């Protein structure tokens, strides 16, 4: 019993990380249909800038805030310098541009921050919380709380605010959105700022568990992307559920089958889901624009 619970808690710990990264994909995708492969780099920057600011003597909350603000600014810069000049290019080209941007950010981070692995203290100490013989670290609760908070924020943003609806309208039809008076350039800038900020928040929260170095972004992006696809790209609920589902699948496979097949099992389930539900569990129905 306590073994099953530990496998589940392990899955939840990992899943919360995936969910938080997956949520970051949502906004840019909703604004432009572009899957931003530099999202993992935003997560890395969140962690690395916090490490640097903390090492420079800033208290941890301030360091985290600096990291989120700076990363959001870098997200805006990435939009202005790479995506905006290529406006009008097909989505696939834009996706490839984001891959290029991610390689650039990784290289720059390597030069600026070095190649060492870093971490900083967990927010609420390292004493594990015991639940019926199984344990979970307090930092995992922070990550879970963070992913739920970001989910609620995004859900309210997209369904309750005019701005959120403007983002969705831009994605649906940029020209029509412009015609009804939506400033689509601003919407794109905003979506990059928010996505980068959410990515950085993810980095800030997960670094005490996963540690960070200049090259962690790719692994985050891949797993976060898989989680987002599983749940349905663009839907915050899908990102959240997809993330936790992926984590639990890995935890249970590692526990009951074999850790060798953990990633394979997770990806087989994703393939099976996408085979029957090509838009993911909660994805919006695709309507072809004619």
């Amino acid at each position, binding site marked *: 019993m306590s073994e099953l619970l530990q496998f589940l808690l392990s899955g939840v710990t990992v899943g919360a990380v995936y969910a938080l990264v997956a949520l970051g994909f949502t906004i840019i995708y909703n604004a432009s249909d572009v899957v931003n492969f530099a999202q993992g780099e935003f997560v890395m920057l969140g962690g690395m800038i916090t490490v640097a600011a903390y090492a420079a003597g800033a208290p941890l909350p301030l360091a985290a805030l600096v990291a989120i603000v700076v990363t959001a600014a870098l997200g805006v810069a990435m939009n202005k310098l790479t995506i905006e000049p290529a406006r009008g290019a097909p989505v696939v080209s834009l996706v490839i541009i984001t891959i290029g941007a991610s390689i650039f950010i990784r290289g720059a981070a390597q030069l600026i921050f070095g190649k060492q692995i870093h971490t900083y203290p967990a927010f609420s100490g390292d004493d594990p919380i015991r639940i019926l013989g199984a344990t979970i670290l307090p930092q995992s609760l922070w990550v879970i709380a963070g992913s739920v908070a970001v989910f609620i924020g995004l859900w309210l943003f997209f369904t309750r605010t005019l701005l959120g609806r403007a983002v969705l309208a831009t994605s649906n039809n940029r020209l029509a959105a412009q015609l009804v008076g939506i400033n689509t350039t601003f919407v794109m800038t905003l979506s990059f700022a928010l996505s980068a900020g959410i990515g950085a928040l993810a980095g800030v929260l997960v670094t005490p568990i996963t540690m960070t170095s200049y090259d962690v972004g790719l*692994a985050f992006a891949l797993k976060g992307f898989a989680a987002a696809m599983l749940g349905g790209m663009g839907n915050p609920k899908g990102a959240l559920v997809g993330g936790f589902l992926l984590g639990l699948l890995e935890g249970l496979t590692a526990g009951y089958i074999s850790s060798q097949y953990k990633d394979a099992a997770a990806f087989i389930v994703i393939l099976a889901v996408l085979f029957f539900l090509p838009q993911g569990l909660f994805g919006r129905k695709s309507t072809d624009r004619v």
Partner: protein
Amino acid sequence: MKTFLTTTALIALALPAMAEIKLGASISATGPAAFLGDPELKTLEMLVEDLNAKGGINGEEVVLVAYDDNGDPNKARTFATRLVEDDEVVAIIGGTTTGTSMSILAVAEDAEIPFISLAGAIDIIDPVKPFTFKTPHTDRMACQKIFEDMQNRGFTKVGMISGTDGFGASMQAQCKSVAPDYGIEIVADETYDPKDADMTAQLTKIRGVEGVQAILNPGFGQGPSIVTRNVKQLAIDLPFYQSHGVASDGFIDLAGADAAEGVRLPGTALLVADLLAEDDPQKPVVDAYKAMFEAKTGTPVGTFGGYAHDAFLIMTDAIARAGSAEPAAIRDAIEATTGLAGTTGVYTFTAEDHLGLDLTAFRMLEIKGGKWTLVQ
């Protein structure tokens, strides 16, 4: 690197009268193996500068032609060819990873140029190839050292949790193959991806195995730190062994002194420079390298920079003894190296042994109170 090359080229131009010895290097200073290659390249550059300041080898200046192969075996092969054909070096140091080393050794053997690799796998020197040598001990030796310690403590049933990266997978296989020699049974064999965030599921499974007496974690990078923290999180009180892959102060910082308490691993003398006996043959060389590297770079010395130090030491020692910079003469002199104390161990090469180290090169270390201590 470019500036470095230009500087050395300028120095070479400025001193036309002085003969020079050209050493080649292909190191993974960037890319996935960067944190190994970076200190290696810094070490080589520092030692060349120091050697030339002291008058070079037998009055001849040493010029280092270094390329960054990015951890890519294809690039390493290209650079090795360039070193041999364009730069006309007399010997090559490098190959940060096993993959790049295998590429370089093919070129070096063809051109009959002596080559000292800085990578771990035993395949590099087994079977022995005439021109290829290496400085790091093999992962097989690390397994033997760990199992020797386990045998002394009376453990026979061991659970393993290994990274799926090249380092972890290779050591996992080596440990499983030598375990029976020490009467040890591997009762659990789990793995994790090096970028995983949590390994409590695997550890819970190992803890549940009947009769398991100790846990061994072959791995590299942040994975072992997370495993160490998870062992503490689950309050598993079994003796816990790490590999030489994490033998650096960074490991204690990342895992936390609290979680790392009592962890044992095989490490080199470099890590415990302060604890070495005064009459230890490695003490002078370890102290000198540590002082020079830390003053120069401001970062603590690590095992990997030490491998490059030893390769350079063996190479320059051989060239000095050979009294000539002909590749064949250097090769013969390297093979005749006897009792040369480096940071990794005391090297004695023979025609059958191009590694030159035995198990005594490893020291069994235990972390106590956030510090390394020697296990007697």
